[in-house]
């Protein structure tokens, strides 16, 4: 999916949800999203990093320097408390939108 099609809010939700399970570094996040969505969402660095920095600035996630097995220094992001609260809220929102959309689509013409 091209990056312009990926709604910003959707990307934020995807990232928050991914980090809910465990802290990850950038490539880990995009791999995980790709894997879980079965390559429906492919997040390139051009959308990933702006989103990560935006979320960090809002205080929903925070980055910490860590080291990979091969010794490379990477920034590992984890969900903060306010990020967790935000995620709950966004999940609920998404459920509402999702239900609404389904109702519209399921309606008999």
């Amino acid at each position, binding site marked *: 999916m091209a990056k312009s099609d990926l709604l910003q809010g959707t990307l934020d939700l995807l990232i928050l949800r991914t980090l809910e399970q465990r802290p990850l570094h950038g490539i880990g996040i995009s791999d995980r999203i790709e894997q879980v969505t079965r390559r429906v969402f492919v997040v*390139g660095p*051009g959308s990933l*990093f*702006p989103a990560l920095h*935006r979320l960090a600035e809002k*205080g929903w996630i925070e980055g910490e320097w860590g080291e990979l097995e091969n010794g490379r220094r990477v920034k590992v992001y984890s969900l903060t408390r306010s990020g967790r609260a935000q995620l709950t809220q966004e999940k609920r929102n998404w459920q509402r939108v999702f239900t609404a959309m389904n109702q519209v689509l399921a309606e008999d013409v």
Partner: protein
Amino acid sequence: MSRARRTAAFLRRCFCRQQVEDELDEEIRAHFESLVERYAAKGLSDAEARRSVRLEFGGPEEVKQTVREQRVGAVLEDGLQDVRHAWRVLRKSPGFTAVAILTLALGIGANTAVFSIINAVLLQPLPYFEADRIVQLESPGDEPDLLIRYISIPKVMAFREQVQVFEHVALYYPGGGRMNLTGGDRPEQVAGMRVSSEYFPLLGAPMALGRPFTADEDRPGGPQVAVISNGLWHRRYGDDPGLIGRKIDIGTASYEVIGVLGPGFHWDSVDIWVPLRADPNSISHSHDYYAAARLKPGISLEQAASVMKVASERFRKKFPPEESFFGHGFLTAERMQDVLVKDVRPALRLLLGAVGLVLLIACANVANLLLARASVRRREIAIRSAVGAGRNQIVRQLLTESTLLSLAGGVAGLFLGYFGLRALLLINPGNIPLIGEHGAGVTLDGRVLAFTLLVSALTGIFFGLIPAIQASRTDLSITLKEGDTRFGPGVRQNRARWILVVAEIALAVVLLMGSALLLRTYLALRAVQPGFDAHNVLTMGMSTDEPRFYKTAAVAQLVRSGAESIERLPGVEAAAICSSLPLEPIYEMIFTIEGRPLADKPYHGMGAWRSVSTKYFDVFRIPLVRGRWFTEHDDGAGAPVVVINETMARRFWPDGNPVGQRITLGKGLGAPYEESAPRLIIGVVGDVRDDGLNSMPDSTMYLPPSQLNDGTTEVDSKYLPLMWAIRTKVTPYSLSPKIISEDIQRELRKASGGLPVGQVRSMDQVKVGSIARNDFNAMLFAIFAGVAVMLAAIGIYGLVAYSVQQRTHEIGIRMALGAQRGDVLKMVAGNGMKLVLVGLCAGIAGALALTRLLSSLLFGVRPTDPDTFIAVSAGLLVVGALACFIPARRATKVGPMVALRHE
């Protein structure tokens, strides 16, 4: 909480920029390395892997840029970065930066200077309580739309009755009065003023001690009381709080000091105020006073005007207009500030227009410099846009540079303009109202600072925009491939530069024309035959404002003995007194001609009224045309006589001889001005330009002071000081001037029983003072025009020099092919001269349209004077030619080989 965090993040980026950038770089590079490794694991070589990653995800720099862009405060941050970059760029080319800042400083400085005068004179309110409610009460003159500040008591009473619109209707004698502080060993002449009891409440004058006059003290025959200025209290009485209730001597009378004004209160330079004591029931129609009032809160000028319209009609019915000197129109109130600045407002507006042109020229010049630089910087800009800078970013960057330049120019201009102006005002305060002594009232307040800041910012955008847009339009592929600048910039860019230079020249021509016309005025004013000889005349004022001089005989005695003792001094040729000096304010008087029937008015004419002693005509060397002078026998005992000037003779006796005719002065005015007996015209003297060097002489009547009635003498003594005029054998201020002046002062003190004299000036100084404002305008215009021409010349020079540099290669080829030096010179300089000619023509057209705005400031020259236009054009051509030929000559010195090798 989250806002605090974001702010913290923003601040961290501002102050720990390098660290933030390093971390971002490392994070993203690590990510890309991981991706590359992943591709390499699929069996690609390192280079291939990198290429694939780049193709799929873009480069790390792009990613970093998108991260930066969506951060909090990204715009601000970019701004800071732009400023930092601009600063570096400007510092790298100090020559360019210095020239640009200097040019802008001249333009902005000139504007700051003129604006600070306008601020002090037109914008700052008068220093009185709610000054916009203070109005001058005026009465209609004989011509439509002519308003006269002089006013009679019945007219003032018509205002006083309108209690629903006016309060504190105050009466006062116009300025210029002097009083003698006697008592103690230091007699001193100070500016004094008679005012009614409403005067201080009207102005909301703060009292440091004591109180203002009461209405009781303002009644005829009331007690002798005085209010003094804070300055006088400090200077003469050492801030003594015990002064209140004490008596001080003014002349031979003693006055009780009842109040000292607060330090912030000024009215001209008046130091003493005493009650006016006008009789409110007087029905004299003599216009002796000024009057001012305060509009009631919430009342507008228009409301007051409509009320006064009705009141004027009532007044007209009560007093027949021809007797009460009620001209066309209505009694009127006008804001006092507007009245005070009426004379200078048009000139100040013109000056503002002129400096606006100077600023435009400065802008054009800097824009030109920027364009020239932009073509040199094309490669830099092309590279920046190749690595991802958007067009907006480039425009923004260039605008930041120009704004930085203009702000620097603004700071320099602020100092240049403000202190330059203060220096100019020290030399010539230009007789401008409300600017204080030597321009002390011209202050650097918030409004001036805001003005300069605004002008600088707008300037920066104005001159920066064209070059910025043009630079951002550069076609990348062409610029980068071009490789060098041998063939010069595109045609479009050159055209912009040509237009700018032509505009600069045209504007400079307009200013130069204006300046030349004012210079002609300056010269014409000095060439005017004023009708009197000002050289070697010393003048001084002697206040006779004390009861013993309210009688004609006493003043006549003072004049006689004073003149005699002065004339005994060596070095003195003749001495005389006059009610006012030539070129200084005088009053007018109506007269009727004996034996001639009256037409529509109760009098035949009106003329300037001067009381002058016998030697006045000798002192000022005013020629006798007909009849005879006054002699000592034309005194109180002799028959009343009068001497008139040629204009009056011509106007009222066009075909006959006025000598031997009789006129009566002030008929119908009542006491004291109505004279009981007609005066015999004994002589006609040459005209004197008493109203100013630039206006034609008016009808004038000269009377011997010994023949005035006591009432007139009393008003005279209270109103204005007696002016002494003494012709010396040498210039009063050259050869032992002090001694002569001091001798005279000593003799006068002796002859007058201790009266001090003040306002000691040579008549030459009086003459220069009367045209100070013309000179001030001419001086400012000359400075502005000089700056304009200099900037325009720099503009032409720069353009030609630049084109020489750009075309060195081409010139080399031409010379290699056999072109002679003369050909090259003609080609290069010819292009420049074409611009000069086009600019000159445009400028002349502009000047033809604009110089008539100057008409009111001109004298002795028409706004479209052909000689001036030709001279200015010739001068500009010479300057333009120099600016073209100097750089063009350099082109011819280039050896063909050097030129061909030139990159």
